[in-house]
């Protein structure tokens, strides 16, 4: 966990710098009240102090049981997480072109086939079922306007 804390500490310092720099673009105070720059300025300052505290703590303390744990998962798990994330990103990018039901079907079938080792027909079957159920619940009953793709659905 020490390594994770150090990474988080450094990210925190980066964020604090960003908040501070952004805050300088706005007025810090108006005549009586804090200006738009007041809150981001103090967020930056406090975050910087806390990041230093966290970093300092990682150098001071003895390694505990949690410190030997890895933050990044094993190779296979990392592959699974990355794949799922990329599939979700694909949903985000393709939905305007393929439409909601087709994208959902491809997402589910893709995950089940590639990641969970389901057969191709079974994966497609589940994909169609999930797309249909979600479309009926959210599109039909709850009248959400989902993007329509080239198939017109």
């Amino acid at each position, binding site marked *: 966990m020490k390594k994770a*804390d150090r990474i988080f500490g450094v990210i925190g310092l980066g964020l604090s710098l960003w908040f501070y720099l952004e805050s300088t673009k706005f007025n810090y105070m108006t005549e009586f009240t804090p200006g738009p720059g007041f809150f981001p300025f103090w967020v930056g300052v406090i975050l910087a102090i806390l990041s230093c505290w966290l970093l300092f703590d990682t150098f001071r303390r003895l390694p505990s049981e949690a410190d030997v744990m890895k933050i990044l998962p094993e190779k296979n798990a990392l592959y699974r997480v990355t794949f799922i994330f990329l599939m979700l990103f694909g949903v985000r990018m393709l939905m305007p072109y393929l439409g909601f039901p087709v994208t959902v079907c491809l997402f589910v079938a893709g995950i089940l086939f590639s990641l969970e080792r389901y057969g191709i027909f079974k994966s497609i079957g589940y994909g169609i079922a999930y797309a249909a159920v979600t479309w009926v619940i959210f599109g039909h009953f709850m009248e*959400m306007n989902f993007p329509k793709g080239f198939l017109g659905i």
Partner: protein
Amino acid sequence: MEILNGLMGGFATCITPYNILMSFIGCLLGTMIGILPGLGPSATMAILIPITFGMNATPAMIMMCAVYYGAMYGGSTTSILVNVPGESSSVITAIEGHQLAKKGKAGTALGLSAIGSFIAGILGTIGLVAAAVPLADFSLKFGPAEFFSLIVMGMLTIIFVGGKSIPKSLMSAVIGLGLGCVGTDIVEGKDRFTYGIAELLDGIDFVVLVMGTFGIGEVLVSAEEFMKVEPIKVKFRELFPSLKEILQCRWAILRGTGIGFIIGILPGAGPTIASFVSYGIEKTVHKHPETFGTGVLEGVAGPESSNNAATSGAMVPMFALGIPGSGATAVMLGALILYGLKPGPMLFVENADFVYAVMASMFIGNIILIIMNLPLVPLFASILRISYALIYPAILIICVIGAYAISTGLFDVGLMLMFGVAGYFMKKADIPPAPMLLALLLGPMMERSLYQALNLSYGSMLTFVTRPISATLLAISVLMSIAVGFKSVRRARALVKEDDKA
């Protein structure tokens, strides 16, 4: 009398077929999702928010409350049958309940858990009604300075009491405050951190953050491995504990309820601490404390009642003051805002019918929950046999739909994915996302209160210490900070001593 009349009105509103159906669906879905290993009530509510889109505020909130206690009960089932607590408040149940299950008493543990939760739910709701209304009346005296101090105190308590690591919880909260700065500022109407993106002008939507960090983040962690769980089998006829067993646990249930409700009211303490305190007390008062850890009935009944009563207690500051006391109530508060309501003391003035209807629905929801859960536990347990590979794609799709529905656009979906990755790494690095969520909700309120208070006092900061309520709240915050700081210094000294010895 006014409270009773209000409550009767609430019952009249919520005893309609539609609202009862919503409560039933909420209990059912909450239990079904909450039973999945690794998904606690906060994540369950976050995932199920999209289902309430398009509904009126009253049935939507009735459903969300039902989801909350359904998820609490679902989490207990997983703890007892699989030994995987959905969230920290079920840890104790996993210790004692699973031992009972291994002894062939899974049904008794589940039955006692259901009965304890039911009694605690009903008594806790009575406590909620009795405490929230006077507190809301009292808080009508609050001005911006008092609200600012209250928010400061609430946030500090949540961080100090709730988090494992104080700097990490504080950092999570400060990042949340930073995220709360995104959008049009209230002082000069300038765009902050929007970078010309129109979708960010209204700020970051809470649903996007909660679905990303709790929904996507949790699912990514769970989906790292091929999850295969082997729940202990339960039969219907084994589900009812004997009268002797119920009577044996009656004091544990009542003690748990009292402790849970009081602890639940404190911001940040919530169900986890309540269940641990209740367990500790049961162990102390038990004739054979050495048997704890081997499957003791009181060790399940007490903490289970306690964590359920704490959920009612946590709703007191949420309804009365608009200050959430835990991650789950923060999700609920966000849902309130989403339904177009303004949380805080004025809620009781402007939307009294709504508040009483929701409170009344909690009585009905608890009755539905026990009627549904006792006979259906074997069915719910069978959900654990469905491959997780088939469940998580559905959860992810619901999250995408939820983010899409906010502005009927894909920008929020992208933002949610970003928070999902952040939530995943936060979970891996043991950084609690709840303070960030609370700060996102409370940050803009805090900034507004500060602005209004200083405006009214012509820029004098003394307004926060010269007004008695505000000064008291700030004094509590300072004392709490000093106590925590003192504890940290002592811990640091102990570490240095250990270093020297090594």
